[in-house]
């Protein structure tokens, strides 16, 4: 359960870009993601992977160990998913053919190009996502949702879910530890039973918390819209300019390298 104790929210609250205007951070992260998925060739996403990781590590001062740990699991998944594409699709010259259990498998230049593109695109998207996740606290995202006129009921529900996630995490760790030291997870059957008990207890305790919470909210005159302390630092012109230059550079790289493919 280590991800629960050391979740991304901790770094979002304590990184070096914490006080930068959140619209700027969102623009940078989302902009990079969109350029990644729109790029027809793998060089631009690769450029984004390198530069955005550098920004996250050097400018936002996220520890390298944390960043590598976060990235390695999704990268392994991306790698496996890409293998399927490698064998399924593509045209052009055959690079490699072999047979596994009577199924002929072929890698062509087309499929290799597509697979490499999807791999770096996924990688690039992940870096954009991690940039947002590691620099922008959820609370600021809620105030953005308010400003963008998301339905108030949805924003409130998101905030309450956010609140309950932390209540649940604390409960889960406590119950899970208690179950583990009583050999609750030593066999499959026991694990299922323990997990069900854990799930049900969480639900019931959460339910009770929710009933108490609504009384607390009502006694503070809740009228269907939770107020948010929306204090944002105004964006600095230098920051706006540097983000515009960076995204412009990414687009320029994407356009200039749009015909360069690794396999011909």
């Amino acid at each position, binding site marked *: 359960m280590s991800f629960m104790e050391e979740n991304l929210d901790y770094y979002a609250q304590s990184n070096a870009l914490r006080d930068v205007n959140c619209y700027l951070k969102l623009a940078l992260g989302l902009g990079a993601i969109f350029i990644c998925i729109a790029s027809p060739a793998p060089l631009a996403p690769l450029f984004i992977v390198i530069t955005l990781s550098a920004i996250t590590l050097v400018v936002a001062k996220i520890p390298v160990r944390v960043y590598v740990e976060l990235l390695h699991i999704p990268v392994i998944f991306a790698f496996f998913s890409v293998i399927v594409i490698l064998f399924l699709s593509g*045209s052009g010259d055959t690079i490699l053919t072999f047979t596994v259990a009577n199924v002929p498998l072929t890698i062509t230049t087309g499929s290799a190009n597509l697979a490499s593109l999807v791999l770096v695109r996924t990688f690039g998207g992940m870096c954009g996502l991690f940039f947002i996740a590691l620099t922008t606290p959820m609370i600021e995202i809620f105030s953005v949702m308010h400003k963008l006129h998301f339905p108030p009921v949805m924003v409130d529900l998101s905030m309450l879910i*956010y609140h309950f996630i932390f209540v649940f995490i604390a409960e889960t760790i406590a119950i899970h530890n208690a179950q583990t030291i009583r050999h609750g997870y030593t066999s499959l059957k026991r694990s*299922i039973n323990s997990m069900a008990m854990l*799930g049900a207890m969480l639900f019931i305790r959460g339910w009770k918390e929710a009933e108490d919470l609504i009384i607390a909210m009502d006694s503070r005159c809740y009228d269907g819209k939770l107020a948010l302390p929306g204090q944002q630092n105004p964006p600095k012109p230098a920051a706006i300019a540097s983000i515009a230059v960076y995204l412009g550079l990414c687009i320029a790289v994407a356009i200039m390298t749009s015909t360069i493919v690794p396999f011909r």
Partner: protein
Amino acid sequence: MHIMEGYLPWQWCVFWYLVSAPFIIYGIYLLNRQVKEHRETLSLLAVSGAFIFLLSSLKMPSPVVGSCSHPTGTGLSTVLFGPFITCVLSVIVLIFQALFMAHGGITTLGANDFSMGIAGPLLGYVVYRVAKAVKLNIFVNIFLVAFVADLFTYVITAIELAAAFPATHGGFLISFETFFAIYAVTQIPLAIVEGLLIALVFKYIVQSRGDILVKLKVLTPEQATKITEGFK
């Protein structure tokens, strides 16, 4: 497992956003109405949302070594609140998962919500109503709902992937078979485990707080007392 950020081409991202939008909008409409009528449901819905989040973050005891799948967690909320509200809860949960653990992503949100928040719960709900109409045992019913919602989520995910990456020789169908075969190895046993898990969770809830289920009109008061007495 959700589709990762950047995995789908942008055309498909837009397409799945458009497909999911009407369901989400209708869900928000229902949500608004429910909250206006019963103010207290808002925080109860929040508990269910956090519950889905946590269930899908837990690594499930998996019979298949090395698989990393997780419960979708939508089965229970489908039974308690219906499929459309579950759909809105899923959107919120998916956004949190993207930003907390890099499960899924922002551009693939539409596709992921369609599989986990719309298709799975809708089919699960159909199963629930049919099983209720033929008066199937409530625990068997819950098991089936969770099983179907979990499995169908992955069928749809395989369809989404196959549509975005059709095989050059053989097209969509070959692609679908391949993607689903990969999921099926881990997901069919996991769907069974999730079904058992949710049915057990349901049992514990009936035992200790049967009144919650009566309030949500899942059980009639008579049924609740009957089940509780059965366990004594």
